[in-house]
């Protein structure tokens, strides 16, 4: 009898969670099953719960993940930022610890806790559908002050920083704008519509795939790199020439 009650309870819980997920997730292209959620919970308990709590309710060492949605998990875990390597001003990008499937399971589990931003549809990630010029304008207004005009990155206060945006996938760029990871502000669909986010993705794709017209880019860091270059290599070469020209035959 006790066994039957337990079984019923388990079925109700998983079924209820599944029903809740299918109700809240709308635009998510990937279908998730109750099994994904259960696998995700196991991964979560084993790898994330130390900081985020057994039920993702958060602790002194990590924020609550209830309501952050699948997009946040896909970004943080998919770029290797989570699980955190060490505490510090900011989680650094590193090789992902989980594969695609495990990441999706974790995302499914966190998404099952409460409604939140879902993983974006592919139609909003295709650079070919966006307008890079419009995206450039949006990027300069909203992103360049931290990430630099061509996404080379930049410093924030107290050891925090805006990372370089080269080599970041379209999906992760979208998710970052949508969920505001680390120290980044959120750009929800009211401040940047999905189409505008796609324009920004198109702009970044354009400048990252373009051959630099003027030669080696020196990191696209602007006048500091140029100044160092002229002092070390330009003036260094000039001094080499002067020494050569004034050398005496021995």
């Amino acid at each position, binding site marked *: 009898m006790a066994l039957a009650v337990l079984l019923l309870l388990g079925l109700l819980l998983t079924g209820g969670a599944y029903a809740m997920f299918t109700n809240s997730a709308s635009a998510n292209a990937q279908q998730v099953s109750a099994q994904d959620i259960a696998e995700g919970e196991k991964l979560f308990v084993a790898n994330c719960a130390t900081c985020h709590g057994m039920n993702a309710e958060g602790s002194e060492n990590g924020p609550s993940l209830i309501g952050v949605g699948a997009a946040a998990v896909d970004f943080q875990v998919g770029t290797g930022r989570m699980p955190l390597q060490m505490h510090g001003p900011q989680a650094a990008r590193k090789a992902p610890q989980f594969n695609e499937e495990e990441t999706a399971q974790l995302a499914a589990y966190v998404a099952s806790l409460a409604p939140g931003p879902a993983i974006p549809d592919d139609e909003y990630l295709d650079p070919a559908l966006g307008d890079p010029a419009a995206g450039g304008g949006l990027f300069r207004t909203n992103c360049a002050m931290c990430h630099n*005009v061509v996404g080379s990155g930049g*410093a924030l206060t107290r050891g925090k920083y805006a990372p370089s945006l080269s080599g970041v996938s379209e999906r992760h760029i979208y998710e970052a704008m949508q969920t505001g990871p680390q120290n980044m502000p959120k750009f929800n669909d009211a401040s940047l519509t999905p189409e505008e986010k796609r324009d920004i993705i198109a702009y970044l794709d354009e400048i990252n795939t373009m051959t630099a017209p003027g030669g080696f880019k020196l990191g696209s860091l602007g006048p500091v790199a140029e100044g160092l270059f002229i002092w070390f290599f330009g003036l260094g070469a*000039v001094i080499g020439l*002067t020494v050569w020209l004034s050398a005496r035959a021995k």
Partner: protein
Amino acid sequence: MSTTTPEPTTAVGKAADWADTRMGASKLVREFGRKIFPSHWSFMLGEVSLYSFIIVVLTGTYLTFFFYPAMGELHYDGPYVPLQGVEMSQAYQSTLYISFELRGGLLIRQMHHWGALLFVAAVSIHMLRVFFTGAFRRPRELNWLVGVGLLALSWAAGFTGYSLPDDLLSGNGLRIIDGIIKAIPLVGTYISFFLFGGEFPGIDIISRLYTLHIMIIPAAIIALIAIHLIFVVVHKHTQWPQAGNTERNVVGEPVLPTFAAKGGGFFFLVFALIAGLSAFFQINPVWNYGPYDPSPVSAGTQPDWYIGWADGILRIAPGWMEFYIFGWPISMNILVAVIIMVGVLVGMAVWPFFEAWVAKDNREHHVLDRPRNAPTRTAVGVAFVVWYLVMWAGASGDLIAVFFHMSLNDMIYIFRFLFFFGPIIAYIVTKRICLGLQRKDREVALHGRETGRILRLPHGEFIEVHEPLDPHSAWRLVAFDSPEYVPAQADENGKISTAEKWRGRFSKFFFEDRVAPLSKAELEAAHAHNEGHGHHLDSEGNDQDGQGRPLPH
């Protein structure tokens, strides 16, 4: 003696004679062609400034043919995709046209910019050479002043050019200039409105900067360069202390043919260098920055390197330096950049006169000081360089923080600390190094060069073999000026004026720590001593008795 010149017979001879009888070229060639220029690598840095300036003028002239210094708005329809349809000024549009559509435009633009960076760098390093060798002393003080003027003009030329493309980066730079001008008490806002033709950014500033950049500033630079070079001819070139070089002669190569050929060749080498840099390395990719719009600012927005130190001052100056007088803000945190820049230029201009006053030295100097032989001047110079470097690095604190995983806040604290203590540490360290090198010179002149060969004498004593210097090398080590501390002197009324008291204090600061040059007596005594010991080698490296045996002690 006959003074009639023979009639020319060859075609070249006839042409030369035709020109000579009309222009008197032979007189010029005789005079100028025999000017002597000493040869040393550090004497060619001024040439680099001149040559890079010529290259910048040539490339800049080409750019003026295609650049529209106007701020009328239009929509871009050129080949650069990420800006197509974007509203921008004619200035920015024409810069993009030069970069993407004009044949050779991007190369010339990059040569113009790399050449400008090299120009200011060469001017700076040339001035450092002149300072550290004491080449600014009488009779060259006025030429040093001309040089200070050229330095300031080169900053102005660079900054006005940096601002012309009207992209986001240059507009941010102008916004800072606008802020600095507005920080000037009472008149700042009026000056800003006058300069920009209304509230920043207005629609006039690009054409106004253009007039300054292509006409007024280059004309002033050319005029000062002409004066600078005439002074070089009038004063003759300085030379390093070495055997045969005196205050009354110049030892080196004549302009014709040697120096002119070398100089001409050097021009093309510098040209090739700038062209090579510009062909392979991108500079100021204006298309990245987008058109100027007062709202966005990019991370990593910095001026070109020569304005970097002013930007650095603004970044490390604490905000509490702004205060209010009767409700009017006095933005000292901004003004401090202007005060330091003007102060540095004034300090540079005054230095030759200050040093002559302190040392009571009104003699002509054509033989240079080796930097170690003027320890205080060298230490002050290095302290200044370190101070400048701290301010300069202050402008790149954000990039340093990112690359070295530091906190941006900590970088600012470090720069604030170094702003005050860096120069003091540099002064002390440099002065000790100079005095140490002087003592080493003295030691080497007295006892010869250490050969590293250790000999064991028959009775067991070890001695190190020293090789005496040849007189040419010894000259450099012993023939130098070493002013002494001259305390404050009383005037004819027996009174010591306040100025004289200060001069005495400075004299103590400059010359109290001193390593005197070797006297003749010391040198002779040392030679006698060395002969007596016999533990040095002749020029072939043989032992003095020629037997391969050490001399008895």
